[in-house]
């Protein structure tokens, strides 16, 4: 049977159908992710390592941290995001010639920005630019940029090249050394290959520096700071209590918030919200900036369950949320936030909304401009929240649906999708996604609550694996109590952190991660601690060059 992994939303919609029933597909649809033989290995074994480049965000943050201040935002080769995450794209693609030229440009402009300003330069370098100064500064700078010890010989090479290309100009020589280091593959690529573990032949364990680097790119989207590197140098970082303290320190740093938001954004497709288009003539709630408002709400909900000491599952059913003027109007609330301001509100207990799945953002981004897409909404739940596999549509399938009944009356979306249920070609897969999505029919394609569709009362009955529910709010409660949801969060975070899909042999570690999350009372911080301690995070197969 095939190896399957989590899907990204396919924006053909309604999703077409597969030939054959689920039975014929040998249980593929709905198999756990990654569904392979379906057999879970009992013994963990590590996966081959990958070597990600820095993503655009990591690259920029690292320059800012290394140069202690703002640098021009460089044009870099755009990240790709296969399997949802830019880290996976960064680990699989080969940089283009233009991409290399862009990193060269970025390194030079960043160095220039600092060295053109004597105050900034002096503060960064910290000594008069004689030979000894250059050597000590470059040794420290390269260590931080490369996230590893830099011996005298390597430091000397960087000092020497600066002097060679800028003879007789000590400051310029240091600037050029810096510009060289900032475009060196040792800076641009993350080599977290580990060192042989004598107790487990063939396995490499991350050394303290590599561990520091991997944690730092996860929690800060940037290079480690001096404190973390020093903990690596002394070996203290390998001690559980020190590691815990460092993780907490980093999570409390302002850099953690945007770094973890990058995870959520990619996992949940939040970036697509800004580009969302709706015709204001058909959707009076499509006020200017509505996409950004929708993103703003979801980001606030996520922030609240990520870094605050809160049960992550609240994301799915909590009535507390944040609205700006656009959303207050769309949700028909009395709140009247001033332009550009956000207000924390508690949604009415007898209202239709609570949690992520009833946010206008989720509902609108998983819909067509003018009609809902139960298929997309259901697919999002299956793939992103439950980490389950939905097979692709067959080739050359018609995906348009009859818009009218035989009598010529307009059909509701539920009626249009009837063909997915009755046509056996379609039913195999669609019975796996549509019933979930149909439960959201109480919200239109803009995420506005509705009670009527095509002059008929809305029918928002849905079903998740045999459990019946009505309305998006009720599904939120079901997902909250479903351990597949929380195990899926852990799996997605692992992929984001390591820049690859989990290997089948790492499945025991994935299961353990889900259990740790649960044992902690679903605290996201605890999940991060568990992830960093996980063998899947710490070990890789030995590389044979």
């Amino acid at each position, binding site marked *: 049977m095939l190896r399957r992994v989590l*899907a990204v939303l396919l*924006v053909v919609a309604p999703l077409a159908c597969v030939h054959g029933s689920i039975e014929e597909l040998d249980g593929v649809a709905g198999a756990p992710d990654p569904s392979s033989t379906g057999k879970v290995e009992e013994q963990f074994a590590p996966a081959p390592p990958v070597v990600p480049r820095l993503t655009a965000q990591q690259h920029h943050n690292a320059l800012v941290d290394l140069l202690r201040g703002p640098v021009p935002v460089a044009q870099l080769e755009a990240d*790709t995001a296969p*399997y949802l995450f830019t880290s996976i794209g960064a680990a699989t693609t080969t940089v283009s010639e233009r991409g290399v030229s862009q990193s060269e440009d970025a390194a030079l402009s960043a160095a220039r920005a600092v060295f053109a300003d004597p105050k900034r330069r002096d503060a960064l370098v910290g000594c008069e630019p004689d030979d000894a100064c250059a050597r000590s500064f470059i040794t420290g700078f390269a260590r931080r940029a490369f996230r590893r010890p830099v011996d005298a010989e390597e430091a000397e090479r960087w000092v020497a090249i600066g002097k060679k*290309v800028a003879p007789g100009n000590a400051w310029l020589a240091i600037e050029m050394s810096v510009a060289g280091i900032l475009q060196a593959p040792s800076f641009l690529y993350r*080599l977290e290959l580990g060192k042989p573990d004598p107790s487990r032949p063939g396995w490499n364990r991350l050394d303290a520096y590599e561990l520091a680097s991997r944690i730092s790119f996860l929690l800060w989207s940037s290079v480690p700071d001096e404190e973390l590197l020093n903990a690596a140098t002394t070996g203290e970082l390998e001690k559980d209590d020190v590691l815990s303290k460092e993780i907490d320190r980093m999570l409390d740093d302002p850099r953690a918030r945007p770094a973890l938001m990058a995870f959520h954004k990619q996992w949940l497709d939040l970036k697509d919200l800004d580009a969302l288009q709706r015709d204001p003539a058909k959707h009076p709630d499509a006020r200017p900036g509505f996409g950004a408002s929708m993103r703003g709400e979801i980001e606030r909900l996520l922030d609240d369950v990520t870094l605050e000491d809160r049960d992550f599952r609240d994301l799915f059913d909590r009535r507390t949320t944040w609205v700006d003027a656009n959303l207050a109007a769309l949700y028909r609330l009395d709140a009247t936030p001033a332009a550009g301001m956000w207000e924390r509100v508690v949604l009415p207990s007898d209202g239709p909304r609570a949690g992520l799945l009833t946010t206008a953002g989720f509902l609108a981004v998983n819909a067509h401009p*003018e009609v809902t897409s139960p298929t997309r909404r259901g697919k999002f739940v299956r793939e992103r929240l439950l980490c389950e596999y939905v097979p692709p549509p067959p080739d050359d*399938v*018609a995906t348009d649906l009859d818009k009218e009944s035989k009598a010529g009356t307009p059909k509701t979306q539920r009626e249009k999708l009837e063909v997915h249920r009755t046509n056996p070609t379609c039913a195999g897969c669609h019975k796996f996604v549509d019933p979930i999505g149909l439960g959201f029919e109480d919200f239109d394609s803009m995420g506005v609550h509705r009670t009527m569709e095509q002059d008929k009362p809305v029918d928002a009955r849905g079903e998740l694996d045999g459990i019946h529910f009505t309305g998006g709010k009720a599904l939120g409660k079901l997902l909250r109590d479903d351990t597949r949801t929380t195990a899926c969060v852990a799996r997605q975070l692992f992929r984001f952190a390591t820049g690859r899909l989990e290997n089948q042999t790492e499945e025991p570690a994935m299961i353990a991660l889900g259990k740790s999350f649960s044992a902690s009372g679903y605290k996201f911080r605890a999940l991060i601690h568990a992830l960093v301690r996980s063998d899947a995070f710490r070990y890789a197969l030995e590389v044979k060059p």
Partner: protein
Amino acid sequence: MKLDRRTVLRGMLGGAACALGLPLLDAMRSDCGTALADGLPLPKRFGVFFWANGLPWHGAHGHPDKPDLWTPATTGAGYNPSQLLEPLRGIHDRVSVITGLEPHTEVPPIPDGQGDGHMRGAAVALSSDRCRSEGFHHPSHVFAFNRPTLDQVIATTPSFVAPAGAGSQPRFKSIELGVSRALFHPYGHWMAISHAGPDKLNQPITSAADLWRHLFGVPTDTALLERRAGLLDAVSDDAKRLSSKLGVKDRERLDAHFSHLSELQKRLRATTAACKVPAAPAGRSEDLKTELELQTRLLAVALQCDLTRVFSMMFTSPASNHVFSNLGVGAGMHQVCHDGNYNAVKAITTYHMQSLRIFLDVLASTQDIDGMSLLDTSVVLATSEYGEGYKHHPKEHPVLLCGRARGALKTGQHVRIPGGNLSRVHLTILRALGIDAKSYGFNGGATTEVLPGLV
């Protein structure tokens, strides 16, 4: 560039009877159309113009109620442009229309989804190969190209870019351009139509201002350029050291990085060619046609000075969800196709052809180094990803071969081969460019046959 007196003389004499080209390059030329002064053949050029989501569907795709508005009524020379080809009228004697072709590459049954029109069609139209099947483990088709696209094959063919005896080669191996920034997903294969190999995207430059910087924004401070070039010694050294620690696949990535550094170093040290540097555009225009024309004008200057010989223009990206609100279409194009919105797709196709016309007009009105128009020295393959986007049908893949390749390619023809192998287009192009290829196409797509009557 240094020219000896005899070369200069011969060039000047030869040039006297021709249309005016660029002064310095004029001096290299021996006559008006056969060779440079040093006996090397005059350069030919290759480009791709890509548009998204194919054409409106018709009978050949299982929709007998819809007429074929694309295929010209007659075959052979002197076709009359069809309704959808109408925007090319007036220049259509320099365009051949190839109809009836489709991918012949195999479609492995496992994992499923590999027959999908977007991916199979784009891969074959651009690389004559099927896509990598391992990507299909991913249900949303993280497929990737299996080999370099044709533009990159040509750009790395030594006899094409730098024949033996040539003193230098073009400053850029190739130039990748794009206009619409709308993407289906941020996956590699939707982000670029030029690939140097699997997972090796050449992402397009999508603003004329960036293109200008890339082509002409070379600092005049030669001391700075030399410093930058010198610095790359240490950077390359670092690349080599890292590479030795890696497994095969990652070592290849680092080695590619290393060779890009060498190219960059060469470029920093090379003086620029004798280009009349055009004015820098202010920025990007959100009107696709305006942006296209701005970019193409700069590209034409680059070709004219032989800064490059290979180019590609991704006007709209494969499976694009670009919203053509200017045409009154409210949803993304990919969606519009799936919704079966025939009139919208027809309007968008006409818009795509009008855009191709702009692209060709700029090439036709700009002289190559010998005074011949760029369109007459080039081959431009204009194509899309499949026949039509309603059901992703592979039949009747749209192909236009524009330009005369310095007389090696016959134009103004309509060649019709129902069910014919799409890879024949690539073989024909290679032959027209003077690149020796007995066959082309992979994994079921191989062919030894060129398109009849064109080369």
